[in-house]
Structure formats: structure tokens, C-alpha cells
């Protein structure tokens, strides 16, 4: 059962990573990166690594996305 869930999560991560690379709208790409971090955190939990899962969830899908949005705002301002 957990193998099926792990394979399904892996495929979803691949699809979302492709969205993050190839999408034109940068906001969607940043959010896709954050969701990849979230699913990777669940995958770490399935592989019996709770410390890594906690770190990935808080830093990879929380703080990293916020910092990307701040930087995107600064780039947009200097472009306009």
C-alpha cells in the first residue's frame, strides 16, 4: 500500500516539476516549486525520516516560497 502511494507521489512530483520549469507565468512556477517541496516532505515521511520531513516542510515549502515571492516582487518593480 505504501509502495503504491510512494510511486503515485513520485509521479505527481515529476509532473509538478515539469510545470515549474516550463510554465510561462512565474507565479505559478514558484507555487509549483513549493508544492513539490510539500510532496517531497510526505515522501520522506514514508521513507521513515521524520526529521528530514519536518525540515523540508518548513524550509523548502514554506520559507523558500515566501523568499522567492519577495525577490519576484523586486524584479517586477525594476522591470516596469
Amino acid at each position: 500500500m505504501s509502495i503504491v502511494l510512494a510511486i503515485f507521489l513520485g509521479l505527481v512530483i515529476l509532473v509538478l516539476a515539469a510545470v515549474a520549469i516550463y510554465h510561462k507565468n512565474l507565479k505559478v512556477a514558484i507555487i509549483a516549486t513549493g508544492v513539490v517541496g510539500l510532496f517531497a516532505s510526505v515522501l520522506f515521511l514514508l521513507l521513515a525520516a521524520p526529521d528530514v520531513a519536518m525540515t523540508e516542510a518548513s524550509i523548502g515549502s514554506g520559507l523558500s516560497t515566501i523568499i522567492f515571492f519577495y525577490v519576484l516582487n523586486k524584479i517586477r518593480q525594476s522591470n516596469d
Partner: protein
Amino acid sequence: MARHYAEHGAAEVGAANLVSAVVVTYRGFDTLGEVTILFLAAAIVGFFLKVNTRDNEREASLRKTSEILITASTLLIPTIFMLGVYIFMNGHLTPGGGFQGGAVIATGMVLMIMAKPNVKFNHKLLAFLESVSGVGFVVIGVLGVLLAAGFLDNRILPLGNFGSLLSAGAIPIIYVLIGLKVGSELTNILDSLKETQNEK
């Protein structure tokens, strides 16, 4: 080597969480490297994004945030802080530790920035907290060299009962210092990014 850690870790170090026993005690020098990297990153961001304290005309132009966010944040922010403090205080018993607890506290600060965009952080207090925690961490490491077997060894304090809160020697103190340091560092970075948003 891994078999030695798994078999003798609980007896030698006295921590119920084996990962924290490896990170803080057996491989304590690597943790010093991690703390240094975080400190360097925060210092570089603080150097490049220097905050101007005379940007006061920006405050009136921000839109007022929604009432749901303000009301929910008054409930959620203390809970998130308490969760972060719980994570790094029980780092030797449950999964987690100093870095995770500090990151959770910084996420609570992000919620506060989003709910109340005019909030002003006291940069001097954050810098003071970060420096004191960093120096304390190095002092405990050197005490480990002087009084026990190696850098950041936790046997400078008695090992105590296995599984209780005051067990595992100096690991709770180390994790409290790391949690405070990481939390104040990440808050400094986020606040520098927020304050320099509208500069031309």
C-alpha cells in the same frame, strides 16, 4: 560505524532521538559548520539589503488586510510559536531539533508580517539574540573539548533518566541555543527583504 551508532547510541549519549544524538554529539563538528553557513548567509543578506529607517511614507499606501486573516492570526501565531519552542526543547526525545524549531518560529513571524504589514521588528534585539546564541554554542563546544571527550560532547552534564525532559546531558541546552539562533536569523532575513521592497 552505523551499526555502532544504532546499537550503542542510546546508552552512550542518553538521547531517545538517535538522529539528534548523531547530529549533535557524534558529528558535532559538522553542526558547527552548518551554524556557520547559516550565519554567513544571514550576514550577507543583511549586508546587501540595508534597511533605511526613513521610508515612512510607504505605510499609508498598503491595503488593509482582510479581517479573517487578522482574527485567525491572533489565534494561530502564539500556537505556532509554542509549537516551535516545543520542537526544539524536546529535540532529544521526539523528531525535530534546533533547526526545525527555529524554522517553525520564522514561519510564525511570516504570518505576523502578512497579517500586519506595518509591524516593526527590533533589529538590535534580533541581532543580539543571534550573536549570544552563536557564542553560547561555541562555548559549549569548547567546554566539551575541555571537560569531556570531544567537541560538543554532551557528557559535561549528567545523563539523567532516559526519556525524560532533563536527560541527555547538554543536548537540550545546545538545541535551545540553536533554535533561538536559527529563528532570529531567518526573521532578520525576512524582515530585511520586506523592508526593502519599495526602494527604487
